[in-house]
């Protein structure tokens, strides 16, 4: 408190009094320039390639071609499932981290963070090792005589979901945890004291209060899922096509950059729409 107040004071001292808004804009300028020239402009150019060549035909193709619509729908579906599973699995973990005694909280954070700090590539390869034809699971089941032939677990939607949920769950857990932590435990006591059985306490009080965290966690996971590449590419093995995998194929295999640009534009549009919807859903908490 005092430290941050002191910091704020020294900032005021350093930058004088002037219009705080203009000063803050100045502070953000390097980042803005960096993103503009090295990210926004190249990406915009890439997505606008067809326009630069004087045609909108690739956009039309991306939005009407049955195959592409299917891939977009598929991507959307996978992202939605990943979000749902992250909620179902991550919510209890966040709750555990909130209520656990300090030692267990530390262990819990360790378990969530260590994978989080590990490269996505490494984690995805780990799933290949576990799920593969000659992977740990198959070898164990075979040698135990439970199955005769190896199970085909890789290159399927469940495998992709498994890998993606694993990679993305921390992005759900942290926002939810930070909201849960701030919930006044007196509210729970109050609800119980006023006659609410435990399940009503959860549904009427706890869950609604954590909703802002759930929505921001879900937004993060969903948006990251929409553009996810490595995990679906490796665990899907070409059988599970998400839009980013398709874009990569058009860039690297078909060398059709125009169409890849158009698909990227569609991906961005769909993601923005989803984001807009979630923002709209979150508008509710403005009131409190």
């Amino acid at each position, binding site marked *: 408190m005092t430290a941050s107040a002191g910091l704020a004071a020294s900032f005021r001292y350093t930058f004088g009094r002037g219009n705080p808004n203009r000063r803050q804009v100045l502070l953000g300028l390097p980042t803005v320039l960096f993103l503009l020239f090295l990210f926004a402009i190249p990406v915009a150019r890439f997505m606008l390639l067809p326009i630069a060549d004087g045609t909108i035909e690739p956009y039309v193709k991306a939005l009407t071609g049955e195959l592409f619509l299917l891939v977009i729908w598929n991507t959307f579906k996978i992202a939605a499932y990943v979000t749902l599973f992250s909620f179902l699995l991550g919510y209890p973990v966040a709750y555990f981290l909130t209520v656990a005694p300090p030692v267990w909280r530390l262990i819990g954070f360790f378990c969530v963070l260590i994978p989080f700090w590990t490269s996505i590539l490494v984690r995805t390869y780990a799933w290949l090792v576990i799920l593969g034809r000659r992977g740990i699971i198959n070898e164990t089941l075979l040698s135990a005589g439970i199955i005769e032939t190896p199970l085909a677990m890789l290159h399927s939607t469940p495998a992709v979901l498994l890998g993606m949920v694993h990679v993305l769950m921390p992005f759900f857990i942290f926002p939810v945890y930070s909201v849960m932590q701030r919930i*006044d435990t*007196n*509210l729970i*006591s*109050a*609800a*119980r*004291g*006023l*006659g*609410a*059985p435990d399940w*009503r306490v959860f549904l*009427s*009080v706890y869950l*609604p*209060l954590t*909703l802002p965290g759930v929505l921001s966690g879900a937004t993060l996971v969903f948006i990251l899922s929409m553009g996810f590449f490595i995990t679906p590419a490796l665990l899907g093995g070409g059988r599970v096509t998400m839009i980013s995998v398709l874009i990569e194929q058009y860039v690297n295999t078909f060398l059709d950059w125009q169409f890849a640009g158009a698909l990227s534009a569609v991906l961005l549009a769909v993601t923005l729409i989803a984001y807009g919807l979630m923002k709209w859903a979150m508008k509710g*908490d403005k*009131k*409190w």
Partner: protein
Amino acid sequence: MSDLSLKGIAKHFGDVVALEHVDLELARGEFTTILGPSGSGKTTMLRIVAGFEHQDAGQVLVRGKDVTQLAPAKRNMGMVFQNYALFPHMTVAENVAFPLRMRRTGRAEIRERVGWSLDTVALGGYEERYPSQLSGGQQQRVALARAIVFDPELLLLDEPFGALDRKLREQMQLEVKRLQRRLNLTTLFVTHDQEEALILSDSIAVMNAGRIEQLGTPRAVYAEPASRFVADFIGESNLFQGRVRAITNGLLVIETEAGHTLHARARDGLVEGHSVSALVRPERPQPTDGGLSGINDFEGEIIEAVYMGESEKYRVALDGGLEFLVRWPGQGEARTRSEGGRLAFSISPDDLHVIAVDGSKK
């Protein structure tokens, strides 16, 4: 039959004893305050009554029925929390309706009860607001409305005025008191603020280290504290340590450690030789012209004078070295007593309250 009776409640957390052996009875409509410093076990006691904590031993009876095994939700007690604990995602009306909804009350009755209860706390018209849009005092009223709307058998108040500024606090205290009287609510109130306890309570249970040190009316705990702790905790006090030297003409003659001689009204059970503490409240001494001819006459130098508006407080170094606190009504400019001046006063034997020190019987 008491509305609430606690019988031999004991509770410890690990090695720490929170409650030793607490008995307490509340009659219908009685406002009882549990007063004590933090760590005295008062909050634990309230949480045990509400069912949020489970006692290690003893029983909680509500209207003669043992509720020890009942979950908080089944106890039918209205509680107001220190920070009100209003549900931030619900409107005022939804907050107040919450306990009724949990009891599956009909829609029409809910509307009627919520209306009644908000009117009772003078918050009609605020139904659609959210708690964050209300002032502290209004939030407090909502919490109160929510606690009384379902006609609870018991009202529990956990330091509900702590967060309010002084003026609002006094106003809310009186309102709560009036409401409690009007609805004849049996109320258990927890606070560390002795002033609040004196204003509101029918009876006060002063707690210290997990035990009730004294249970009595506000007047009794203020004027006749049962122990040094109570004397010290409630109000300001001058305490003399001493020994009963003689009993003459119905007066105890007490020789203090500092060498003063005090005369106090005799009390049953005190005989020559007992060690005692003699308590004088600062507003009790009467000014004199000086001279030490009468009994309980004192004189000394003012070492600190504090003007507090309605009263003035003097710290006086008595001749003989003891410090004494005097509080008299505030005086006009012309009659200022200032630091360095002399102050003479006399204490009536009736205004000296004698407490037997632990170890010797009262």
